């Protein structure tokens, strides 16, 4: 019994409960300008940004599924796996996981001040530490933020706003952001400008104190035209170690058919691997294929892989890369056809040259070099298959609730639960295999053959229904045989209105 209890002890530093581990990581670590040294930053993800000084931002969201798989395979919690990789890669670091890059920066500073090494928001201890952080944690990062804005010519007088902000805090005697959560982003915007509105929103992203429409989204292209309008977005700029490995091809004669293009492209993948022998210690998540057509117009195709792709090992077929290239080629040709429909160009425009670049590369950490070997073959092959398909394969997991809409969730990897879901599973026995994306109202008919199935109560206690049409409504579910002989899953709400929810297929 004592042994069982010991096994169930979970550190407050790691316990996330039902929460997912946040996907933004800030790493404070001394890294020289040497490229080989900086490669270490890419052990967890392909998306790395240098924030300033020793601070590095890592976006792990596109690698989450992969790392979950690896963690499951190695018998680690995801947090433990990240910790092990960081420990092995860097001798001295401070790192913080959070729901937004800005939030992660503040949290990392707070950890640094407390002498902590690694923690995540969403854990009891992490949340408590972050709630107690001082505005002094903001100072270095406001400075870096000012530099980023200046470099992009987005704000000229941010320094004066910073001074005003500091004076405001001093006069009001405010020391901690969580003491003044009643300050609205709009009021800060009026007094200090739009950037303070964003900073304030970002600080509380993903937390119960979050303001309406919290933004955890990240603007991937720093120089996109939508940059100015989308002030809620954080301006991410990928850190590029060196010029991306590239192969350029000038065709002897223009090519139209995929069959011919694919042969040449396969050779180019081979050339990429030949020129970059160290690719076998790396994984690709994005290739860029820049096509130039006969009319000298260029089009860029992004070949994005859902899971880290071992380009070197995929030879000599390079089937995953070629499948993704094929889907992109179809899209581009369709787009060109549509655009040039009213011109006198040929119906299909032939390709005269292209460039193939590796845009995103992940370094395999020392701990990770055997990962593909130790990942079960079945999982590894499923990951490869996901890379070859144009759309994602969806898998689901059950949630412990009787409410039909909330009783399942999309899941890249099902959570391990420490309780049996049998009673919720049994409750779905007389529910249909397919439900309608949109619940549609129906007029009842006397020709219906109906039989009562169950009564489902709305979750009035969550408060989500306040003001909504469905407030505190019970739903009586029926199986109804319509005149056509087909069986539908219908419900009648407390007002006696009928709705079609599913079909028994």
């Amino acid at each position: 019994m004592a042994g069982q209890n010991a096994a169930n002890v979970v550190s407050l530093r790691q316990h996330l409960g039902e929460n997912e581990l946040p996907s933004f990581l800030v790493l404070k670590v001394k890294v020289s300008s040497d490229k080989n040294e900086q490669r270490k930053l890419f052990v967890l993800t392909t998306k790395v940004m240098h924030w300033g000084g020793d601070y590095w931002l890592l976006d792990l969201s596109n690698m989450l599924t992969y790392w979950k798989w690896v963690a499951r395979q190695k018998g680690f919690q995801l947090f433990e796996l990240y910790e092990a990789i960081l420990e092995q890669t860097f001798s001295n670091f401070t790192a913080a996981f959070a729901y937004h890059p800005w939030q992660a920066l503040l949290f990392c500073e707070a950890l640094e001040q407390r002498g902590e090494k690694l923690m995540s928001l969403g854990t009891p201890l992490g949340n408590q530490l972050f709630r107690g952080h001082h505005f002094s944690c903001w100072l270095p990062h406001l400075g870096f933020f000012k530099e980023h804005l200046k470099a992009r010519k987005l704000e000229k007088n941010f320094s004066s706003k910073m001074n005003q902000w500091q004076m405001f805090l001093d006069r009001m005697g405010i020391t901690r952001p969580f003491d003044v959560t009643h300050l609205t982003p709009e009021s800060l915007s009026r007094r200090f400008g739009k950037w303070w509105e964003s900073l304030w929103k970002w600080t509380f992203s993903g937390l119960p104190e979050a303001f309406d429409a919290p933004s955890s989204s990240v603007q991937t292209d720093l120089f996109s035209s939508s940059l100015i309008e989308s002030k809620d977005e954080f301006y991410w700029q990928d850190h590029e170690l060196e010029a991306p490995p590239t192969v350029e091809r000038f065709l002897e004669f223009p090519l139209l058919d995929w069959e011919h293009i694919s042969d040449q492209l396969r050779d180019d993948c081979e050339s990429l691997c030949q020129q970059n022998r160290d690719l076998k210690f790396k994984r690709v998540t994005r290739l860029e294929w820049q096509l130039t057509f006969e009319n000298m117009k260029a089009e860029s195709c992004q070949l994005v892989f859902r899971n880290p792709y071992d380009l070197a090992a995929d030879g000599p077929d390079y089937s995953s890369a070629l499948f993704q290239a094929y889907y992109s080629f179809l899209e581009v040709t369709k787009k060109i056809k549509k655009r040039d429909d009213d011109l006198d160009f040929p119906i299909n425009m032939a390709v005269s040259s292209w460039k193939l670049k590796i845009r995103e590369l992940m370094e395999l950490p020392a701990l990770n070099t055997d990962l593909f070997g130790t990942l079960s073959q079945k999982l590894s092959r499923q990951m490869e298959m996901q890379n070859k398909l144009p759309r994602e394969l969806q898998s689901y997991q059950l949630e412990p609730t009787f409410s039909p809409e909330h009783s399942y969730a999309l899941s890249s990897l099902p959570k391990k639960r420490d309780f049996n879901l049998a009673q919720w599973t049994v409750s779905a026995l007389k529910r249909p295999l397919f439900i309608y994306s949109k619940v549609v109202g129906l007029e009842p008919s006397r020709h219906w053959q109906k039989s009562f199935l169950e009564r489902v109560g709305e979750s009035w206690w969550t408060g989500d229904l306040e003001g909504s049409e469905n407030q505190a409504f019970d739903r009586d579910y029926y199986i109804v045989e319509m005149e056509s002989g087909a069986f539908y899953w219908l419900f009648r709400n407390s007002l006696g209105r009928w709705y079609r929810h599913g079909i028994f297929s």
Partner: protein
Amino acid sequence: MKKNNGQERERLIALLGKNTGNGQFGIEEASLSSHLFELDGLFARKGGLRRGKIVEWGAPRGHYGRLAPLAFLRGEDCPPVVWVYNHKDVTVYPPAWASLGIDLSHFFFVDCKRPLPDLRPLFLDPVFPIIVLDSPSKLSPGDWSFMAAKVRENGQILFVIRPFYLKSERGNPHAHWRINSWFHSKEGVLCASPVKGSQHETVKLELNHVRNKWQDKMQQTSSLSAST
């Protein structure tokens, strides 16, 4: 329970013997089983539902017809399945699938109107030993030839579910079995009627028997965990 199973099996063997004329029970060990003797019996004459085979099901929407193919895909020992569906305005409701015994951890769904050419890699690499195409919008003779060749080559099992009843007048040379499946509301039974591949007459299964087959086991597990 064991006795009942035994009786049922004897009845099925007798039935098979009567229909095939030789009395041999031809289901091979490696075949996919629905754990429902009557349903398995439809496939017995050709050695059971084995790798490399194609089954075409006629199951109009709203008539419970998908319960028959689903019976072959339940349980933890079922290999990974990809279910490609093309239903207008509807999406899958996973709890109902789980309640029928489907192991969601290795069951993948894709909403795709044209599985060929869009999902061609599924047939080129046998990562998923079982592929279900539920109501594909259009399959040309070329598509069928490609699928049949690849399924045979890779040792996959392919179910193609049609949203209409199959007729013997309009055949499909690539499908090893063609079976219509529907719920007969007056009799309260799930019917499976072979159009091709079996000499059986329509098989009738109690709907609750098909659904509860798995539930008995789950409820036992549930009560066991509650008592502990």
